[in-house]
């Protein structure tokens, strides 16, 4: 059986490319809200994720090696430090630099979420932060509102991906922003990673089916009754959705009304006394 996260060969799928690295898995996973670091680690393994994001505010460098969250990230995965907790562009920048000093990686998931209730990303500060971080040499993956114009602005600022939200982070409400996501996906020149709000595996499949390059899931796995099984379910759904996208959806007929078997304009030649150019009565202007 193919490991979850690996799209089967034969449909010519390309690897996901982020910041010059290639990834087979299109499911990224977060590390918050789990009941224990051990369950988190087992879930990450079951997800097959190759990119794992960690909140720098939760990392305690004084404790690495003594049970810090970083000690439970499986070896071999790419660590994506995030700036969760930052309220301004400057705070995100400072946090990203702390992360780079700690991990040696230029990768950063940019999160500027000043409202602690919705954790909605601040579009203005996110764009400012992206500009600061790109100028400082970071590979920036910004969590952002599902706004097509902002997505383009972030791309223009030099971000490696855009990560629009599917619904409020942690809400498990699915693709409430689907219409906007479709526009973002259609217009983006960088990978679009749907981040936040995916509640069940079918939400991940739906995001992949409409052409997202990847999805990022955290809460839905962490708070599931069986996080490890849910991680695997999301892995399979992500692959299924990607396959569905690559396979190409058949044209869907609108109404289920029977098609007429005779030509729609057949009546024109069967009218015995109808108007035609040659029979136009005099006095009627053409």
């Amino acid at each position, binding site marked *: 059986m193919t490991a979850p996260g690996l799209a089967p060969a034969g449909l010519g799928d390309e690897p996901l490319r982020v910041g010059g690295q290639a990834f087979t898995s299109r499911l990224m996973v977060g590390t918050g809200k789990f009941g224990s670091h051990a369950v988190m680690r087992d879930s990450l393994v079951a997800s097959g994720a190759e990119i794992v994001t960690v909140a720098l505010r*939760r990392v305690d460098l004084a404790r690495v090696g003594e049970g810090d969250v970083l000690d439970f990230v499986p070896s071999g995965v790419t660590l994506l430090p995030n700036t969760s*907790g930052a309220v301004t562009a400057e705070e995100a920048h400072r946090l990203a630099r702390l992360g780079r000093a700690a991990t040696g990686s230029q990768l950063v998931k940019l999160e500027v979420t000043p*409202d602690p209730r919705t954790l909605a990303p601040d579009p203005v500060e996110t764009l400012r932060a992206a500009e600061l971080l790109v100028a400082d040499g970071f590979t920036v993956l910004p969590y952002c509102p599902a706004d097509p114009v902002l997505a383009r602005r972030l791309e223009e600022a030099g971000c490696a991906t855009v990560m629009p939200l599917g619904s409020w982070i942690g809400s498990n409400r699915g693709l409430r922003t689907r219409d906007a996501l479709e526009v973002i996906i259609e217009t983006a020149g960088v990978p679009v990673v749907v981040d936040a709000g995916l509640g069940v595996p079918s939400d991940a499949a739906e995001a992949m089916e409409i052409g997202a390059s990847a999805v990022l899931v955290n809460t839905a796995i962490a708070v599931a009754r069986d996080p490890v099984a849910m991680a695997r379910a999301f892995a399979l759904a992500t692959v299924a959705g990607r396959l569905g996208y690559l396979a190409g959806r058949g044209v869907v007929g609108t109404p289920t009304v029977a098609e007429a078997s005779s030509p729609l304009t057949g009546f024109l030649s069967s009218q015995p006394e109808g108007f035609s150019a040659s029979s136009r009565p005099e006095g009627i202007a053409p």
Partner: protein
Amino acid sequence: MSAPPGAFAKALAGLDVAGLAAAGLRADEAAVTAVLATARAGRRLGLADLAVLLSPAATGRLEELAGLARETTLRRFGRAVRLFAPLYVSNACLSSCTYCGFAKGLPVVRRTLSVDETEAEARLLAERGFRHVLLVSGEHRVEVSADYLVAVVERLSPLFPAISIETQTWSDDTYARLVAAGLVGAVHYQETYDRDRYSEVHVAGWKRDFDRRLSSFERAGDAGVRRLGLGVLLGLAVDWRADVLALAAHTTFLSRRFWRTEVTAALPRIRPNAAGFPPVVVVDDAEFVQAHAALRLYEPDLDLSLSTREPVAMRDGLVRIAVTTMSAGSSTEPGGYGTPGNAQEQFSISDERPPAAVATMLVEAGYDPVWKDAFPLVSL
């Protein structure tokens, strides 16, 4: 001279919390069922709904209420429980509050830690794993001055990414200085939102000014304090339900006005202390759980904090229902971690487990003890 009423004081004046509480007391089974259904559907509850959830009729539905609160807590906060430690820097006090073990005039041994002594205490807490410390003091404008507190915060900020204070209230520019030094949070319990009762128990001193205290969060929020800690002291006012309703209204007010700010609330019950103050009402254990669960449903995003003044069984039970932040291994005596027995404690604690044991309890209950949940806001 008393302070002018702040914006929330005006809002509170327009709310009849006693009337809402009284109406809630008359709630029947059907009313409780309706409010629980509203919460289950994920719709916002109003203060009248909260009053229903605080009613005796809802006490009879406590298991159902707790189950719904647990689901809400898990959805919003996951399995993360934040830990912090109080660090008492001084028990000197110029306020006379009839319920407090630090009150001016009580014949207790007073001590104010020097900045060096505070750092020594802080290092012990850091060694025990804490990365969030709450600096606590009595209200003494000379011994615990703004300059002193700023110096303490500056000294501790390399050790702790999160520093909060529970001290007297301050002016705007003092809050701004504290934030610049590394302050994250301010805790100022109103104790009771009933003005008459407030003036009965706050006999003299800075804290006697109800409006100065009530408006303190408006000054702190304007100055950039990121976490605001509210509380009512259960047992102080007879109508404890009205106090919980007023606190709920206060959280909503602050959440809207300071949308970048996290609001955290606590419902301490009066504990034995040097003041020997008898509670005027006993909020029993079932009602205590009910109040926490009801607040969780009223405000799903509210951080609820529970101290070691509650016993082990209550702490271990409430963390599974509604509580999202806990202190652990606390001493309420200045210098009590490194040099205990040299000053009066504020109150006696109930849960005497060391921090590591509380963390172990959380792990065994399926929760992740979060010691660090912040990063330094000021450059080191």
